[in-house]
């Protein structure tokens, strides 16, 4: 039963001088889960976009169930049974789940939408694949994991037999990711075929049947997953060994940031913060773990100066902060790395130079009597892109043309050049490849070594355990008592993440038995 359902033959695609795909030939078999690996910019998304008809290849063909797809037609791909779940969801937040799923499947000229039969079909799909979502719920009220389920249901509803998922776990927590892979397993068991794009080795090893590695647009490695190792895959992806971050010995420092029972109102879909307390010392990395949507973004906004606490106090270097603003935070030496790089961290349409200047352009030396000193700003920008290895054609390049990794380096360059005493990073390696992730981790460790305190907000437990000296867990807007990383276990933290505070807080060091029992 392992006949080929999908065949990419000699796909080549260039964008101006850049070759995104070079002569890629790839097959997908019936009932198979194929992992497509590669660093950012290796051409994974381009390849899948060609398959799905978003792009037209310069050369090569796409064959689905034995017949060649016409070029550049997403509709033809859909009709042939290819469904795609994008990394950034394409759902209308102000419509219900059912409406989102029906959207585009009914003729525009239809007078009446046959919602009843659509609902029946949807329920049947949910039962068959164990994908439970409330069909009447508004999409904007759903968690990210649920929204992804809606996306999957959407393509299944359209009769997809081949599912393509672009970085499906980048927005999920470990538990949600496990759930997703269980779902995909079931789909494959029902005879569907799945390609998922990723750069996380753990997922490839755990979930896929076969894997293929793209590097610089070329297919460099292909193997049955059981016959290869994570190390081999990593080498194929990067082309060389990945530097392991060097962890300095922990040092005790003075307390530089303190939150005392801070409460923040919820805003829109953001969870309110309840009674949050933390104490950050110099030289320390404090990890904030938690399932997505439990108030991490409000905490990040609070420490960025974007929201004002309703109750409690923020104390920086022993001094209380009355009305925090972003400017006040910067002035007090807080360097902030937001989770949303293109929308919040950077002005995507402005140049590298301008983006590096947004926190310093008013300072003497960069502006005199309201007039910018372009020479000083440009030489600073050149120095910084050199020092932080930001790959860009020049400081005049618009930031939106950079890769995610280079954007993150740019933000790090901007804040670290101010020598911050406190660094607040939110999902710092979200969507970054192995190399860029290692770079970001090393920068954070180095900053802590130099004496900065780092608040690391992350949904990636590996990252939390890897970098933090202490861990606090966020659940429904409240922070747990800190755990020393050396003494904490993944199970313990996982239990706190799911809200099991009975065994958390002060008793958590002895709570691992409960966790084992619960798991």
């Amino acid at each position, binding site marked *: 039963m392992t006949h080929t359902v999908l065949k990419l033959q000699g796909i080549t695609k260039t*964008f*101006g001088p850049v070759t995104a795909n070079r002569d890629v030939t790839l097959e997908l078999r019936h009932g198979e889960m194929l992992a497509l690996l590669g660093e950012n910019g290796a051409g994974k998304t381009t390849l899948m976009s060609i398959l799905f008809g978003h792009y037209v290849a310069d050369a090569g063909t796409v064959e689905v169930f034995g017949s060649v797809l016409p*070029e*550049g037609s997403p509709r033809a791909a859909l009709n042939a049974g290819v469904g795609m779940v994008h990394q950034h969801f394409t759902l209308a937040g102000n419509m219900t789940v059912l409406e989102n799923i029906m959207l585009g499947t009914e003729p525009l000229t239809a007078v009446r939408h046959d919602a009843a039969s659509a609902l029946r079909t949807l329920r049947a799909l949910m039962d068959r694949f164990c994908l439970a979502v409330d069909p009447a719920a508004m999409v904007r009220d759903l968690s990210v994991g649920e929204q992804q389920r809606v996306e999957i249901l959407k393509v299944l509803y359209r009769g997809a037999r081949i599912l393509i998922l672009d970085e499906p776990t980048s927005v999920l927590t470990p538990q949600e990711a496990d759930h997703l892979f269980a779902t995909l397993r079931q789909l494959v068991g029902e005879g569907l075929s799945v390609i998922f794009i990723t750069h996380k080795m753990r997922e490839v090893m755990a979930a896929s049947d076969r894997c293929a590695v793209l590097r610089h647009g070329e297919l460099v490695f292909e193997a049955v997953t059981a016959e290869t190792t994570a190390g081999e895959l990593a080498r194929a992806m990067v082309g060389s060994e990945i530097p392991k971050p060097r962890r300095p010995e922990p040092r005790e420092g003075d307390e530089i940031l303190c939150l005392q029972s801070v409460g923040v109102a919820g805003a829109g879909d953001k969870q309110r913060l309840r009674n949050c307390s933390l104490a950050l010392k110099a030289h320390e990395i404090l990890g904030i773990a938690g399932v997505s949507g439990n108030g991490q973004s409000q905490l990040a906004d609070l420490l*960025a*100066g*974007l929201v004002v606490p309703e109750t409690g106090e923020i104390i920086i270097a022993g001094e209380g902060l009355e009305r925090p*603003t*972003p*400017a006040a*935070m*910067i002035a007090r030496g807080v360097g*902030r790395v*937001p989770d949303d790089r293109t*929308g*919040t*961290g*950077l*002005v*995507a*349409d*402005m140049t590298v130079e*301008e983006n590096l*200047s*947004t*926190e310093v*352009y*008013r300072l003497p030396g960069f*502006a005199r009597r*309201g*007039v*910018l000193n*372009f020479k000083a700003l440009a030489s600073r920008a050149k120095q910084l892109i050199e020092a932080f290895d930001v790959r860009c054609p020049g400081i005049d390049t618009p930031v939106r043309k950079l890769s995610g990794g280079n954007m993150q380096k740019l933000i790090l360059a901007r804040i670290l050049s101010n020598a911050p005493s406190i660094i607040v990073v939110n999902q710092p390696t979200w969507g970054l490849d192995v190399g860029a992730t290692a770079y970001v981790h090393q920068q954070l460790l180095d900053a802590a070594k130099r004496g900065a305190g780092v608040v690391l907000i992350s949904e990636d437990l590996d990252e939390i355990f890897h970098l933090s000296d202490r861990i606090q867990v966020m659940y429904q807007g409240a922070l747990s008592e800190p755990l020393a990383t050396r003494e904490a276990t993944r199970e313990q933290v996982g239990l706190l993440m799911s809200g099991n505070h009975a065994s958390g807080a002060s008793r958590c060091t002895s709570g691992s038995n409960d966790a084992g029992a619960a798991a």
Partner: protein
Amino acid sequence: MRIEARENVSLTLRTLAPVVAVAAAMAVCSVLLLWAGASPLEGWALMLKGALGSRFAITETLTRATPLVFTGLAAAVAFRAKLWNIGGEGQFYIGAVIATWLGAGSFEMPAYLMIPYLFLAGALGGGLLLLVPTLLKTRLQVDEVVTTLLLNFIVLLFVNWLVFGPWKDPMAMGWPQAAPVVDSAVLPQLFAKSRLHLGFVLALVCAMGTWWFMRSTVWGFEIRAVGASPRASRFAGMPVNAVIVRTALLSGGLAAMAGVSELCGVKGYLTLDLSPGFGYSGIVVAMLAALHPLGVVASSLFVAVIYIGADSMSRAINISNYIADVTTAVCLLAVLVSMFLAKYRIRWR
């Protein structure tokens, strides 16, 4: 059919596209001319002659371009900050009202003081007028497209009341117009026997100044950043609301200067037809210039050439002057389409 962004837009394409667009627009309008019983070739020759064919024609075109530069700059500055100021027309009239109020004989000053005084006062008035919808936007998130647009009608009705009521000039033989400004408030003409006045030079200076301001100053940088991403600007510590308020003062001020310039440079007294929609045309001018302050000068000249040329042509061959309006509209539409096509390519498949 699919639309793809072009990788690199060559200079040839960028310069050629508007030319082709104008040619296409002329081809379309030729049909109308034929229909009206005129020879298209003759019509286009007359249009060119009417706009650029003589010293008089050229000065008329430049005179017409002058208020467009001001209102174009006003729209360009505001749109750069994503402040959608559709109220250029109202701000234009407020400028003219203030120039009449202060310049029509209430007191005397030498011209070298009077003229700057009127421009500054007018600009302040226009800025304050735009401040109202801007504060509603920053404080209460009221959509400024609606408020600025509606404010135009309020201002126009206000002017209507002034010229029919308290400001009606008894010397105007019953016409609804205000008393003319004093001699020291009249903008000097640049050449003899033409209407081109000092306002044109001032408009050019303003265009250069705005360009420098937006490019090189702290405040200009903030305006560009806030316009490109309010979220990221706020995150980086910029005072976003203050930046928008500053932008409003600048934009409203520039639009009001057009009113002062028309009143003191061309007409001399306030009437209800002082502006044939300069405030609205300024939006078109700014879009054609891709919001670039120096581009505003070029696009103002272009729009003025079409206005004056088409008007003159329709008079010369005695066809309805609606054809002038249609020509203007088609030309602008074609150029905007060509600017799009220069950036994107359409593939038929």
